């Protein structure tokens, strides 16, 4: 009498836990598929030259060498490109946070003539593909004398419609009473923005910061167009020209790719807590 009951209970337990197992299994599989190329990139970058071209390709290096990294920095000027990327991406991020943060807040909370009209116009601008604007933008920057300068690579990214939209949607959830309280407490508009609004917007600003940093760091097309001097090139552009010169040297390429990917990966891992909070809040509050 008791045996069938316990088997029944066992089956029920399985049935209850099965969905959890399936979901976890699918997540592990997805994670493995995503991580494998990255890990293999790291592994290949540590192999001696031509080791990765063997058949079948080895998963792990037979002998670990840091020679490719040494070569990249010693003879291929990767340090210079890394610095270029860092300057361009961090300046663009900082400026984008300032401009998008202020504009998004203003569109959400400050009353001024033509606010809705301008905002609608901006949203309409979202429909224009970035590729369409590249040539006029290049012309404009050339006219301003910014071609082949850091500014030329930074300026187009500092205020984006998407960024303004993201901040505005989040800022809409700030209660007006909070701003009124600060006004009565004696704060001017600039002070309110600094002392009350920015801390409240922090999660979405972190999210936006990661977006902008990733986009600028990884951007290939625009730096390729605007930074013609070899010394000014950013990592992705430099990596591309490197791969043209060293078509056969996969290990060197993978070392370059690792140097390019690692900083943004670490940045994301460090900030993902805030990033998730920003995304969630945005989605829930709409």
């Amino acid at each position, binding site marked *: 009498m008791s045996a069938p009951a316990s088997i029944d209970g066992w089956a029920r337990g399985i049935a209850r836990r099965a969905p959890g197992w399936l979901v976890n299994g699918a997540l592990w599989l997805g994670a493995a598929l995503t991580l494998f190329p990255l890990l293999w990139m790291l592994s290949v970058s540590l192999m001696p030259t031509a080791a990765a071209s063997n058949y079948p390709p080895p998963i792990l290096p037979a002998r670990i060498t840091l020679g490719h990294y040494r070569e990249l920095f010693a003879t291929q000027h990767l340090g210079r490109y890394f610095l270029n990327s860092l300057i361009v991406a961090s300046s663009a991020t900082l400026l984008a946070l300032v401009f998008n943060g202020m504009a998004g807040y203003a569109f959400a909370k400050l009353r001024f003539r033509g606010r809705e009209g301008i905002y609608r116009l901006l949203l309409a601008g979202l429909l224009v593909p970035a590729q369409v604007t590249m040539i006029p933008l290049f012309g404009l920057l050339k006219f301003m004398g910014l071609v082949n300068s850091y500014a030329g690579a930074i300026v187009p990214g500092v205020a984006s419609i998407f960024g303004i939209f993201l901040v505005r949607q989040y800022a809409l959830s700030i*209660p007006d*009473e*909070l701003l*009124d*309280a*600060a*006004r*009565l*407490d*004696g*704060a*001017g508009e600039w*002070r309110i923005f600094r*002392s*009350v609004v920015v*801390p*409240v917007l*922090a999660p979405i600003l972190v999210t936006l910061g990661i977006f902008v940093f990733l986009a600028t760091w990884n951007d290939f097309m625009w730096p390729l167009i605007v930074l013609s001097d070899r010394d000014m090139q950013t990592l992705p552009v430099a990596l591309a020209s490197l791969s043209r010169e060293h078509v056969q040297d996969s290990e060197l390429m993978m070392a370059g790719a690792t140097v390019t990917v690692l900083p943004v990966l670490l940045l994301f891992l460090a900030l993902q807590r805030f990033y998730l909070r920003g995304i969630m809040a945005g989605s829930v509050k709409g």
Partner: protein
Amino acid sequence: MAAVRLHQVRKVYDDGQAAVAGASFQIGDGELVALVGPSGCGKSTLLRMIAGLESITSGTLHIGDRLVNDVAPRDRDVAMVFQSYALYPHMSVRENLAFGLRLRGTDAASIDAQVRAAAATLELDELLERKPRALSGGQRQRVALGRALVRNPQVFLLDEPLSNLDAKLRLSMRAEIGRLHRRLRATMLYVTHDQIEAMTLGERIVVLNAGEIQQIDTPMNLYSEPANLFVAGFLGSPAMNFFRGRLTAAPRAQLQCEGAALPLPAAHIAVPALASVAGEVIVGLRPEDLAVAPPGTAGSGEFTIDATVESIEPVGNEIFLGVQFGGAARICRVPPQSLPEPGRPVRLCFTPGKLRYFDAASGVRLR
């Protein structure tokens, strides 16, 4: 502390909608005035105009001797307590209290002393290092009060400060605000839609409806001598009973309602204001002024009406007796007693001195 004077203050929005139509009244130095009215009557707009958060379309606003129509909120020296508390979420209680003082350039030692004093007054000492999200609703409300208190402003503006609290907490916070006012003798304007809050806290009450001031008086005067139908109906719970009909003088003075007659003293309807009314009149009588006629008076009482019992709601110390009379439901507040079953007739009596007369067309009190 300072008096606040409003003269013909109007607010008309860009779309032409008038939120406040010519408000004139004064809040005396150290007085607590309650501004009461139904939702959307313009009371919050009026408060925000005094705070400087909303522009004044026309009229004048003085705080003390200073005309402040175009003065920025921070330069008006007023403090406001908001319904949603509006505490700075990223600052501790201490920082919340100190923020206004810091902005005014107060030195660190004074800030510390003032914050301590305000915290002691509101029993916030233990909570100074906490963030608002770690506080209960009542504690948050006390911090909001403290933030106003700490600056020692000329005028306190309170915008429905208790509406987000549960009933029990509301009661104790109400008492606390009353105590605070008595202690500080601060000039306060207290906005609420809750007539009980207005009645218990306000030394005087301004009743607002649809942007217009209906009456300004002490709570008891408003209750006993309402200036119009709106005030009569708005204050008091359960609300005043209204009998609508035409006055007749013969065979006896009475109000002819739908299928019934309300007997009235002949002297009442002889006053010019009532005698000259051509149309319908509304007679008001508070629920507590209607009583169940003692058995001995059956048939002989001069000011009695025969009604039908509809509902009996005992609330402990009294009974809300619902009756049907003259085509409408009426409420009487009577002491605990044995009452006829629902559906049975009941004879009610009233004191004619408690009757209030209103013009049915305009709603104006007739006396």
